[in-house]
């Protein structure tokens, strides 16, 4: 590749160390020019201590990992700078690199280079992306398994089944005079196609779990102001020693954090209290809360044991179906004034955050809602990203069309057309067929750096 790129490759949260990564033909030269040691003559795959300097000013005390190509992730020279001074110094280091001839990497560009340089195949490239953003152990296992190719194997085996039928049909077509060869009859086709259909269904079923493992699930806590939403969040997070971050840009305080239940990432989002208001700014917050709840996988509706439900509460409760909704009645230590309408059939947990009480039940309820127990015990060959899922869906659609043609008494050459497309779609998942748009699509879905 022509130029040298750099990016901060650790997440921009609070952490002890952040890493700035540089790759390209001039990676070593550029870092050398801002480092008070020398790297050029050093052995590959070694670590060096020193300082990043801007003219005479010392910016940060760093450890530098030197990896010379081709035995690197991108096959080009890679230099990784471990910065210790927090986000603003890391940004500064990045800035200096940019001033000295690096270009800021596009999202996923490191992996794109690894791919274009033939270091990794398409599926690996996608899995690496998954690895980058894996939040929990299970997600990491899933990502590693994809790199190792369990999913590849699975898809390959389905493709082999299809290609076997295709080949048999082709023989029947190209050598019709050979009556001894197995004739792929409509009955046989029907049998084979249905078998393959089941396998595709299994892949798609797994896809849901794959997505849950990779992205986690979103749990929104909603309710009127001061019913104890934030306390519930803090309790759940404290216990798990998770990090609470303020997401910038949101109107009024929407806070989220991630905990792990059965190794699945649970993103808990605390929303602004919902109430009737004339305040324009608060209105925006209220609407935002409603939007978040709408998109969440699970909604925890929190009410105060000590207060009656308002009209708005009831309206809100009616919005979510029971599959998604958990009701938590907080402040069980106070006098019960709340009256639960009889028509509400959802699970209700009563507890308080002072004792605390009922929070384990709440976690259990989340777990049950998503049937999380079923997920982890299965093997890890799930489809994990939208592109893979989309392709399997397309393959399935083609297969369904093929079955339709079969039922519609179409001749075998017509039936075969869609079967071939199904085969090609599956091939695209593992990079066995080529479509030019593909590469750009995948890589624009990548996060920054590795």
């Amino acid at each position, binding site marked *: *590749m*022509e130029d040298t790129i750099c990016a901060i490759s650790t997440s921009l949260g609070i952490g002890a160390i952040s890493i700035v990564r540089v790759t390209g033909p001039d990676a070593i030269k550029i870092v050398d020019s801002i480092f008070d040691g020398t790297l050029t003559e050093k052995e590959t795959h070694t670590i060096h201590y020193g300082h990043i300097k801007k003219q005479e000013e010392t910016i940060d005390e760093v450890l530098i990992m030197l990896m010379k190509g081709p035995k690197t992730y991108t096959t080009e020279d890679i230099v990784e700078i471990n910065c210790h001074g927090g986000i603003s110094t890391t940004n500064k280091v990045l800035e200096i690199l940019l001033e000295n001839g690096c270009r800021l990497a596009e999202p996923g560009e490191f992996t794109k280079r690894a*791919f*274009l*340089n*033939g270091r990794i*195949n*398409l599926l690996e490239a996608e899995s690496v992306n998954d690895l980058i953003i894996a939040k929990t152990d299970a997600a990491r296992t899933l990502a590693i398994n994809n790199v190792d190719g369990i999913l590849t194997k699975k898809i390959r085996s389905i493709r082999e089944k299809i290609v076997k039928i295709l080949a048999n049909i*082709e023989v*029947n*077509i*190209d*050598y*019709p*005079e*050979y*009556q*001894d060869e197995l004739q792929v009859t409509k009955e046989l086709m029907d049998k084979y196609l249905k078998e393959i259909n089941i396998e595709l269904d299994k892949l798609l079923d797994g896809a849901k779990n794959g997505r849950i493992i990779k992205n986690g699930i979103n749990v929104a806590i909603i309710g009127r102001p001061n019913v104890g939403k934030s306390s519930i969040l803090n309790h759940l997070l404290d216990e798990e020693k998770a990090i609470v971050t303020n997401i910038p840009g949101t109107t009024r305080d929407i806070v989220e954090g991630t905990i792990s239940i059965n190794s699945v990432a649970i993103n808990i989002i605390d929303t602004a209290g919902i109430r009737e208001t004339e305040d324009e700014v608060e209105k925006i917050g209220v609407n935002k809360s409603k939007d978040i709840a709408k998109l969440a996988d699970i909604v925890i509706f929190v009410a105060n044991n000590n207060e009656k439900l308002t009209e708005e509460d009831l309206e809100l409760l009616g919005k979510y179906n029971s599959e998604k909704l958990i009701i938590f009645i907080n402040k069980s230590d106070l006098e019960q004034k709340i009256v639960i309408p009889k028509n509400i059939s959802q699970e209700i947990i009563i507890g308080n955050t002072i004792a605390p009480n009922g929070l384990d039940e709440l976690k259990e309820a989340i777990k049950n809602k998503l049937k999380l127990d079923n997920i982890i015990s299965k093997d890890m060959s799930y489809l994990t990203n939208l592109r893979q899922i989309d392709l399997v869906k397309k393959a399935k659609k083609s297969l369904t069309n093929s079955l339709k043609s079969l039922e*519609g*008494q*179409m*001749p*075998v*050459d*017509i039936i075969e*057309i869609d079967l071939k497309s199904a085969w090609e779609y599956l091939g695209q998942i593992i*990079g066995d*067929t*080529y479509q*030019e748009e*593909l*590469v750009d699509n995948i890589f624009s879905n990548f996060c920054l750096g590795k």
Partner: protein
Amino acid sequence: MYEIIVVGGGHAGIEACHIAAKMGKKTLLITGNIKNIGDMPCNPSIGGTAKGIIVREVDALGGLMGKIADISHIQIKMLNNSKGPAVRSLRAQADKITYPKNMQEALKNTKNLEIKEAMVEDLIIEEQTVKGIITATGEKIYGKTVILTTGTYLKGNILIGSENTPGGPHGEARSNYLSDKLKEYGLKIIRLKTGTPQRIKKDSIDFSVMKEEKGDLTSWTFSFDNKPMYDPEKQESCYLVYTNEITHKIIRDNLKKSAMYGGYATGVGPRYCPSIEDKIVRFADKERHQLFLEPESLYYDDWYLQGFSTSMPRDIQEKMVHSLKGLENAIITKYAYAIEYDAIDPLQIYPSLENKIIKNLFTAGQINGTSGYEEAAGQGIIAGINASLKLDKKEPLILKRSDAYIGVLIDDLVTKGTIEPYRMLTSRAEFRLILRHDNADLRLREYGYKVGTISKKEYEKLLEKKKKIEELINYLKENHLKINEKNKEIFNENKIELPISNISYYELLKRPEININFLENFIKIDYEYEIKEQVEIMIKYEGYIKKAYKEAEKLQKLEEKEIPEDIDYKKIINLASEAKQKLEKIRPKTIAQASRISGVNPVDISVLSVYLKKEYNK
């Protein structure tokens, strides 16, 4: 001084010289033996799956093969009739005496064409440009372009057991030096192998124990311009024969005596046309292999034993043949043999079939690594057309993969090369629903008209056909089935479910159980068979056909992404070394062609695309 010299009077040479002469070029056909022009040295048939469609395409472009086959066959049938419109294909048993005779007659009557008997042993080359040919006697004949269609005659060797006899088929003389000369001029020569089975004397065959295979009772023609000229009731039959355990044992016991397994041969044989010993070795668990007995001619008694090609010595062949049921007392009139011959590596030719190294030199047929009369004819006509266009300083005719099987054939050859004789299969075509038997004229006649191989009259006939097709489609759209007692009765009689409402005939025809003939119970359809067939296919498979055209368009976009001729693949650092080598060697014209090269994987195409974008902003 000729404008075009064609070397070789086989199926490629015939189409090449005929079309060149038709395009008004002063053409010379040189052949080793004039009596063998249009000869069928191997199987006595024209057509077959995919191949039959090539014959139609040659005809659509103004060629001879289909027209001559129509007046020379003794049996004809439509293959894969029940397997769908995309894979239907005609196959005829051509009479091995009549076919060459009719072909020679047709060439004699071709204006601008001279025929000469001589063996060509060298080319006249000046500045990497061909200027003519030199015969075995040293005679120099000058021509502006030369088309080589040498078949199996370049250093041909006939192999029977350990016997190795230099020569072409029928004991004809071979060309001893031409392939060496081509090598000297810079071409890479490859060695290929093919084979032909025994011929059996008719009286010695017991047909009564064999299964008979008859021709179709429907009349067919290859040519779009012919009407059927035969009586379907009076066709010759073919017969099925099977190998058995005894046959297999004889072959296994004597394997080392065959030329191929004994190590007497060097050429690479085709996978799709294995010798019987190959079949026994590779499919050891198969209890029997199917063979066919086909009549070669009405004028002599040889029957062709298809599927039994071998390079075993004669005594073993006797035993093998006699082990077959019905052939216990068979008299072998010709023993099976393998033949090795030189060909050029087709990666050295352009899609126009002109040579990349020697200008104005074209090649077609087996010399390009193919097998089969039809594959040869398909290339021959393109070589003839493009040599003529070159003389007129016009762009060559390059058929796309979505235009014709001929397009697929040539693209495969010049893009992927071949290490075995290449045979066309329907599965090689990704757009076979477009490349049908029935629409070859609709696909190609316009090209023919543009380059001058199709007359104005023939072209107007095509336009008329197109008009009628459109008319009939509209007619079926505009008219609706009336649900009355009489019509109900007809549906009931045919056990076909009656539609609920008065739907159009167009919609009705989409139903799988209904064909266009059934519609004639309700509505007058006064059109020829070809029009009705075309309309039926277009309506019935409309959705699928539309999809195929869409796919073809998508590919076309990649075909339009041209790779600059001066590209230096060495400069593309991230290209895998295998891909670099292949691209350097083949120098594809487009990204689409590059993506079809084996060994060039998607990553390489991506790298190449990135490079083109960067360097040329393509």
